[in-house]
């Protein structure tokens, strides 16, 4: 029962993340949505590692957390740099490149 509930939670997080990516305009909002997707995957790994009694998958979740932090660090640095040039962090308002 709890497995099912937690699976629902993980999938809901994933869907909220995708929804956020599609609707957010703020660059930081986009980073947060990506964070949700990564956490959904980490939650899945922890959940399934309990189910299968597989300790390596718990380590996988730790790696995800660490790499998500790296990604957020680099992402924020890049946003800061971009905002110096364009004075905005709205992803829609930045279009020097044609896209």
């Amino acid at each position, binding site marked *: 029962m709890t497995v099912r509930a937690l699976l629902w939670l*993980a999938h809901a997080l*994933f869907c909220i*993340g995708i929804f956020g*990516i599609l609707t957010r305009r703020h*660059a930081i909002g*986009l*980073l947060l949505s*990506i964070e949700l*997707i*990564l956490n*959904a*995957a*980490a939650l*899945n*790994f922890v*959940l*399934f590692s309990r*189910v*299968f009694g*597989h300790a*390596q*998958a718990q*380590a*996988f979740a730790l*790696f*995800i957390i660490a*790499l998500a932090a*790296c*990604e957020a660090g*680099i*992402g924020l640095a*890049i*946003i800061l*740099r*971009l905002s110096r*040039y*364009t004075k905005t962090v709205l*992803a829609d308002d*930045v*279009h*020097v*490149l*044609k*896209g």
Partner: protein
Amino acid sequence: MSTVLFDSLRSWWPETILSAGALIVFVAASWTHNTRPVLALTWATLGASALALWQTPVPPATELFFGLIVCDPFSLVFRWLALVAVAMTVLLMGASNDIDVSLRGEAYGLLLLIAVGLMLMAEANHLLMAYVAMELVSLSAYVLAGFLDDSRSAEASLKYLLFGALSSGIMLFGMSLLFGLTGQLAFPDIARACTALSDPATQALSLIILLLLAGLAFKISMVPFHMWTPDVYEGAPVAVTALLSVGPKAAGFALLIRLMHALQVAWPPLVATVAALTIVTMTFGNLVALVQTNVKRLLAYSTIGQVGYLLIGFAVNTSVGLQALLVYLVAYLFMNLGAFACVVAVVNESGSESLDAFRGLATRAPGLALACSLFLLSLAGIPPLVGFIGKFLLFGAAIEGRQMWLAVAAAFNSAIALYYYVNLIRLMYFGRPVQRTPFRVAPAIRLALGVCAVATLALGLLPGALLSVIHAQAILNLL
């Protein structure tokens, strides 16, 4: 436990040297703003790593580090490809004047880290290793894409990061579901667990593969995950663009092949989807390339088109297709890096990335124009250059795999692609030059051009050597 680690290290010296070298380069770069010693350190690291790779014994297939990594002939091909691609990029970066001199040291360190990541992607034998390797390549590449001091470069790197993080997140979710379905993390265990799956679970497996494909499609810029390619290529420094167009593509294909090899059971229902995406990828890339006026964007769309050809080898999923894919990857590495070396030379001289900068290049720098034409004709697949050999094998694989549509679409696309490649050659030879002063090409770029040109010609004229190496080495243990 420690004996496993020491035994593993024996086959893993190249990566160890590269990682240690990268860290030393970072420290040295923050110590001194003089690039000369840092560049020397970078070359020493690359040289030592190449020597170690040459000396590495290659047994059929050995699992290292508790099965996280597998060293086999297949990964050996990709380790060499990664090393050559990064070495060429270091050459180009040293010669190009767009990156600020005080930042170059860090860029070299990041390039070495990318080399480690590319090698790991080809060697990964475990979901965790695959994810970490991909992130190592991606995180370094996000930073490198933003190394220029302008808003274009910063925007390119933000776009790259957002697209990259999203697609790797989707892939990661797919990995977690794959683990949930099979209860295994190592590829061989997953393959074993997949054969035991019942019918509804096999259908779930197809969905999982589509999620996994999202992450890898981003790396190899396959439609519909190609949107970042032209923008990032345009904004990033030219040398970085050169690396992005070959390194991650090759490693992405390596990982794709390995993953699909583990999930072979779920392949039949996906053949039609992958074949359709292959045709869309090549057609889209080649058609949009026709109307480009910026040479980096042109090469970006040409890359998407080339990835389409490469995907044929993957879509037919036979040993002939795999061999063709590997041969074309080697060919593509040299011809595309060569083409980008020409772009570096032209951008250095004129400061412009527009196609007009190529006008009348033949009168200003005849050698450069000749080399550039060579690479473009090879990309178009004209015999006797190496691009022709690769394409010939890929088309042959499509016909042999009974996927006539792929062969027809690829032949049609080659005709479209010929137009924009030859158009660039026409501009170089028959366009009226904006300036008439002859210009000298930097020695490092000349070296890169020479290596690529010799490889493009020699492998095209004597394909036997390449074919025998790749046939004997790579096919034996996979498929």
